[in-house]
């Protein structure tokens, strides 16, 4: 049965900003879905507030709405576009929840929109724990297998206490209903922990519901990815086994595909249960994910949960198998059946089969605990990782070692040198799951632990434990070998050892090992991910390396461009860089090159085999990239390697690649170094006559003290060569400087510390520009809303700049051009300026694609990354203007007066983290970047655009109610006007005594509330924190004061996060929010697609 003819247009809901638990994988799935639907001739309407996505590129959908994903805004879009159907299963929990809420409000009925890909009943059955338990029970009755963990549903703390008794005591698992990525869940070992976790969970759950469950800690954990079509054909796409046993969220676990330690009988039981569940739940068409726990002692199978939608695991499963779940889900949703859909990879066989793997896939999560030093780093059932790397090998050891080095974290690869430490201590440490536990286990093995001891400590399956022993034994053989002969090298490589690891063991240099290896002819071959274990010929060049016999890289004629991706997502290097890489691939393919993508991040669009002509799913290390370049040079001509689009990861490889004779296109490695090295960059600025804040580079504490004193406090300190402001702080006096250096002990030895003058009250400006050696194209100028000193990645910003005039732009343009020229940029450059008084300071320049490229591109309707890729390969700006890729005249600095205003807002992961005592982590912004994602609000005026950005990021700003105001002394003056505005809009102001006094003197009434430190009043007057927890505060303005680690207002801000009350921590944000509130109170906030905005802009340009 072919596709349905009664659907002409479909609304697809994306997943919004990147947050922990809901990341780039939904851009991958959403992009696939939109493309498929469009190719089926449907009008595709898309809503997603995240500009850094490929799916929101104007060519992916017919009408792209970068608007908040809230029922209110989505209804506006439906009213305007009147789609026939809504596909809610590809945008994660956000899309699903929005769709359900619109269904419940009757919006879908009102406009006659059919929900496709899922029905409400099925979603509820899959997501509601009570209903799902019934499903599992029903399945058990039918097929005799599968059960739920014994559990108890609670709606109050009394229920919770009763539940523990019913379950026979601690430990118990707490799971709030309807939260994303397992937010708010955890293990409770005693009453205190239970009260805390369950209390939080009851608050987080939109239905005020938590589930208490018997503990199945230490059991084996599995996942199945299933798909079903309307004819009830069901296939299991992939089985995944968790290396970390039950107790760690699957997003935080090392996972392995296919399952490694199940017999066929046991696997078929999981399969039968999975299929019975998808039928019982009633997922009509599309994918779902089911998680199981298996008791290692007797095989008892417990069904943990299901996601009746495309999930993070489905993206992983798609990349692991070559079976594109989202793409197929989209086809199924419009009426096709599995047997009617061809398998992309073989082209000849249908999608109604189950992929079989002749390789092993390992996924390793990447964490960012270093950004949240106060947060508890123990891994639990709440997901905390911010990204992941995946690797493919012909065996587990190879895949595991490749995955570990793909995470690009210092110490992530196994080391076999030095003293491993004390066995007992290591084993004790390994008992608690944390980031890097596998490395602790390896050290324990080195320290003499037996397999049994490792198993007893960790409950990691004995087969996996033996594989770690195997790796260790190979390391011993490498160490013991007389010389690095071909046999030992081949054996080491077969088990995934990198040249660097071998070098470490043999006390050689990495390049020496590589030279020996090449001389001996020990090189990898590239195998194909083909869904069928070579049973059929593969048409899609999706490769991974292996030290095996036969390579499958085919010769080619066209010159190839190799694009290096950005590796695992992390704070400071996320989806924005993948966006630029994907654009480069598209643009260069159009320009006649064969594009070759290298990346190891399974969440991304760049690792979709559809994106580039060839895909190498490989770690982004020098060794791995050199081997790919070698393989591609053997296959045909290579025009060059693009390093400037994938962020710091490829940039860091540039010089070494060039030193190894690899042609780097675009900005040269020397130029990159010129911009990154402070002294050299300073000379560029001096030559161009541009002021930079006073700075110095310190190589010791004494240096640092001297330099800081010279510059004058406050100063900004940071280690050199970092991304995302890692370790960057504002230091107000000498003792704090000492503390800073102490906290970052060791840092100063490896990398000198940069000390800058901190520009108080400066306006920060970001510029993205293209330079071809002759001409500058100013891509866009962004004015930050928060003052300088808050990391640009965490700051909201507006484009076009809302307070800068023509003269300022002229100065910015001249400075940008001087720097681009002085550095020698060929492609993109991002420069941060600060305007203090009337002086324009240059803060830093990055000769690469920046985090803001997607935002700038969307705000100005110009594909900057595509243009940059072309310039890298020799095109000029003039040529690109003539081609139409860039506007014929003008640029991002000369936007028409009525150009829309775009506001970017950062999204912070505060709610994910708790400190050791279980308290929230502080939410104050600083020079170190901590946001995971961003949203864009676009409208004709700033206030509305800002309000949209807030609605997209955190939920709508309130237009009435109670606002609590408490600001630092330095902000009190600036607070008065916006506070007055709030009152005029009908807000009741609450304030602590100091702030209230200032307000009253200015004729603004404010109710004094008690500080947390004052405690409850004699007549039961609540403190502000209690009021927030009781839901009696609608807006919080709290700017921090003090300089210590514990800033005042901590309790207020963490309470705000817990209760999801909008919390503004700078007075500038308050001013912007007031404009937003005003715009919203005026009513009629409209929606407009990017295509309409672009049309408007283009018309105005012509």
């Amino acid at each position: 049965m072919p596709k349905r003819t009664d659907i002409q247009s479909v609304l697809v809901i994306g997943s919004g900003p990147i947050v922990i638990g809901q990341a780039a994988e939904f851009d991958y799935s959403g992009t696939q879905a939109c493309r498929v639907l469009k190719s089926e001739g449907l009008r595709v309407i898309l809503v997603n507030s995240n500009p850094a996505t490929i799916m929101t590129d104007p060519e992916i959908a017919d009408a792209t709405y970068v608007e908040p994903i809230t029922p209110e805004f989505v209804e506006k879009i439906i009213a305007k576009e009147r789609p026939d159907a809504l596909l809610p299963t590809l945008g994660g929990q956000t899309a699903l929840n929005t769709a359900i809420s619109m269904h419940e409000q009757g919006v879908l009925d009102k406009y006659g929109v059919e929900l496709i890909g899922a029905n409400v009943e099925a979603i509820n059955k899959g997501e509601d724990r009570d209903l799902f338990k019934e499903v599992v029970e029903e399945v058990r009755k039918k097929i005799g297998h599968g059960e739920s963990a014994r559990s108890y549903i609670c709606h109050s703390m009394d229920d919770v206490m009763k539940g523990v008794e019913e379950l026979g005591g601690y430990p118990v698992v707490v799971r709030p209903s309807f939260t994303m990525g397992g937010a708010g869940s955890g293990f409770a070992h005693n009453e205190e922990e239970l009260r805390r976790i369950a209390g939080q969970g009851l608050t987080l759950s939109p239905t005020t519901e938590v589930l208490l469950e018997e503990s199945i800690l230490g059991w084996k954990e599995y996942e199945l990815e299933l798909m079903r079509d309307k004819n009830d054909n069901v296939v299991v796409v992939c089985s995944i086994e968790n290396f970390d046993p039950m107790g760690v969220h699957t997003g935080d676990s090392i996972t392995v595909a296919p399952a490694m330690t199940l017999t066929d009988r046991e696997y078929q039981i999981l399969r039968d249960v999975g299929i019975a569940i998808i039928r019982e739940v009633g997922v009509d068409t599309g994918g779902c994910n089911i998680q199981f726990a298996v008791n290692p002692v007797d095989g008892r199978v417990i069904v943990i949960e299901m996601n009746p939608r495309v999930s993070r695991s489905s993206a992983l499963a798609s990349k692991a198998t070559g079976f594109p779940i989202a793409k197929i889900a989209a086809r199924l949703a419009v009426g096709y059946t599995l047997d009617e859909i061809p398998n992309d990879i073989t082209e000849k066989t249908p999608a109604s089969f189950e992929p079989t793997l002749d390789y092993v896939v390992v996924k390793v999560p990447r964490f960012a605990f270093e950004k949240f030093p106060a947060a508890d780093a123990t891994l639990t059932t709440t997901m905390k990782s911010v990204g992941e790397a995946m690797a493919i090998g012909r065996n587990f050891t190879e895949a595991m070692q490749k995955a570990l080095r793909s995470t690009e974290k210092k110490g992530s690869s196994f080391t076999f040198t030095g003293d491993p430490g004390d066995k007992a201590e290591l084993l004790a440490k390994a008992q608690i799951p944390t980031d890097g536990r596998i490395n602790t286990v390896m050290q324990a093995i080195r320290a003499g632990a037996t397999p049994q001891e490792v198993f007893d400590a960790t409950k990691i399956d004995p087969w996996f434990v033996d594989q770690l022993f195997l790796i260790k034994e190979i390391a011993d053989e490498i160490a013991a070998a007389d010389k690095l002969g071909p046999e030992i090298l081949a054996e080491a490589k077969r088990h995934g050892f990198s040249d660097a690891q071998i070098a470490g063991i043999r006390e050689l240099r990495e390049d020496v090992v590589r030279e020996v290896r090449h001389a001996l002819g020990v090189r990898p071959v590239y195998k194909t991910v083909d869904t069928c274990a070579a049973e059929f010929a593969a048409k899609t060049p999706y490769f991974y390396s292996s030290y095996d016999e036969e390579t499958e890289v085919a010769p080619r004629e066209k010159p190839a461009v190799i694009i290096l991706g950005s590796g695992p997502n992390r704070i400071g290097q996320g989806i924005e860089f993948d966006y630029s890489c994907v654009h480069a691939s598209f643009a260069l393919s159009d320009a006649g090159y064969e594009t070759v993508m290298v990346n190891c991040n399974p969440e991304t669009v760049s690792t979709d085999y559809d994106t580039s002509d060839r895909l190498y799913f490989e770690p982004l290390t020098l060794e791995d990239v050199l081997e790919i370049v070698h393989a591609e040079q053997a296959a045909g001509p290579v025009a060059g390697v693009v390093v400037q689009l994938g962020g710091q990861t490829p940039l860091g490889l540039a010089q070494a690649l060039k030193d190894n004779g690899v042609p780097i296109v675009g900005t040269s490695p020397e130029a990159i170094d010129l911009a990154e090295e402070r002294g050299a960059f300073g000379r560029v600025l001096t030559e161009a006559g541009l002021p930079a804040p006073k700075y110095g580079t310190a190589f010791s504490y004494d240096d640092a003290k001297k330099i800081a004193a010279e510059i004058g406090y406050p100063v900004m300190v940071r280690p050199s060569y970092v991304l995302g402001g890692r370790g960057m702080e504002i230091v107000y006096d000498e003792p704090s400087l000492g503390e800073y250096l102490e906290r970052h002990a060791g840092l100063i030895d490896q990398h000198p510390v940069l000390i800058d003058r901190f520009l108080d009250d400066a306006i920060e400006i970001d510029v993205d520009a293209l330079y071809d050696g002759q001409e500058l194209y100013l891509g866009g100028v962004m004015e930050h809303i928060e003052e300088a000193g808050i990391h640009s990645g965490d700051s909201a910003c507006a484009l076009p700049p809302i307070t800068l005039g023509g003269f300022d732009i002229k100065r910015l343009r001249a400075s940008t051009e001087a720097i681009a020229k002085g550095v020698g940029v060929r492609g993109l450059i991002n420069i941060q300026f600060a305007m203090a008084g009337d002086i324009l300071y240059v803060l830093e320049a990055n000769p690469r694609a920046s985090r803001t490229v997607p935002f700038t591109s969307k705000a100005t309707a110009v594909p900057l990354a595509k243009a940059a890729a072309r310039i890298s390969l020799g095109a000029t700006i003039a040529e690109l203007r003539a081609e139409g890729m860039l506007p014929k005249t003008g640029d991002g600095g000369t936007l028409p007066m009525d150009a829309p205003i775009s506001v970017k807002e950062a999204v912070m992961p505060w709610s994910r983290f708790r400190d050791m005592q279980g308290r929230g982590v502080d939410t104050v912004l600083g020079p170190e970047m901590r946001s995971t994602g961003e949203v864009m609000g676009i409208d004709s005026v700033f206030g509305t655009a800002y309000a949209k950005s807030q609605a997209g990021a955190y939920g709508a700003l309130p237009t009435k109610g109670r606002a609590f105001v408490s600001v630092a002394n330095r902000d009190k003056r600036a607070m008065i006007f916006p506070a007055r505005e709030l009152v005029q809009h009908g807000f009741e102001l609450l304030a602590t005594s100091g702030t209230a006094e200032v307000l009253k003197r200015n004729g603004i009434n404010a109710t004094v509330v008690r500080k947390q430190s004052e405690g409850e009043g004699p007549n039961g007057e609540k403190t502000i924190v209690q009021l927030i927890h009781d839901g009696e505060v609608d807006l919080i303005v709290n700017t921090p004061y003090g300089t210590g680690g514990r800033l005042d207002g901590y309790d207020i801000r963490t309470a705000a996060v817990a209760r999801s009350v909008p919390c503004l921590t700078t007075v500038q944000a308050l001013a912007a929010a007031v404009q937003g509130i005003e715009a919203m109170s005026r009513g009629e906030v409209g929606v407009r697609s990017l295509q309409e905005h672009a049309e408007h802009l283009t018309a105005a340009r012509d």
Partner: protein
Amino acid sequence: MTTSTRGTEKVPAVLVLEDGRSFRGRAYGAVGETFGEAVFSTGMTGYQETLTDPSYHRQVVVMTAPHIGNTGVNDEDPESKKIWVSGYVVRDPARVPSNWRSVRTLDDELAAQGVVGISGVDTRALTRHLRERGAMRVGIFSGEALPDEGTLLEKVRQAPEMKGANLSAEVATQETYVVPAIGTKKFTVAAIDLGIKGMTPHRMAERGIEVHVLPATATIEDVYAVDPDGVFFSNGPGDPATADHPVALMQGVLERKTPLFGICFGNQILGRALGFGTFKLKYGHRGINQPVQDRVTGKVEVTAHNHGFAVDAPLDKVSDTPYGRAEVSHVCLNDNVVEGLQLLDQPAFSVQYHPEAAAGPHDAAYLFDRFVSLMEGQRA
């Protein structure tokens, strides 16, 4: 948990294909030499079932899944009393098995049963070779069999070919045995053992069938001596073109219109009994992920396959046969190979694949119910 010592011995081994390509690796299982038809199996689970499936008699099985032996060997999962493959090719054998049912390692089991294997070869390259050139003869040599490398290819080329091989009798039971019905007995079935897998009578027994498993040499009198409600023809090794006795036996059953069900080799026998030909596939279907469509309902089953030969019957029409009209009931969606036959005028059907699974998905288990309903229909 102890580490297998054999793994660290690193006894060299060589695999030689009849077209001259060879692969080097290490001995796995028994050390020595062995010959057979090289075929690849793509199942990621179920090596124990595969090894003990009599249909693999005289075949050297290449496992495309790299890790084999992870769950060790237990006493419940074998499909027959012994390992039938003549040789075993894997990439990364497990050193330590891990499963609560495991009682020994696979390595030890292979060695104990004298099965010569090889590990550490590029199984994907070998699979691609077999896919492009077709299944062919192969030899594995290790230990004392190895030094004489010059003559290995000659030895391989002297080994017997699969085409024209009549192997059922070599693998089938010599004596009739009975698998009792589980619960109340409802039917009696005479099952002709051409290389039957243990799970097949078990699936019937689960449905209240008492299964009399008869030797491949059974006569029509032997069959009807058990007073069967239905007759079953099993899977098994070899070229169906040589299976004249089973074909004649089946024709006797068809003449009596007794409900009939065949699996795999049994499907090919039905094909021949109806007058269709059989042919050797280039490299066969061996795996547990094959999409088969039921041509009546349009539904797709994911099924277990192990066949190197197939029935040559027209897909586009109903055929007239001596036993009435026949049609192709199931087809493999990968390559349109005939996967099932059914008679429209009398109760007989067969499938080329394995509804008993083991290893493999249970999607096609309904076929045993269909057999039961045929027998019920006959009684009514």
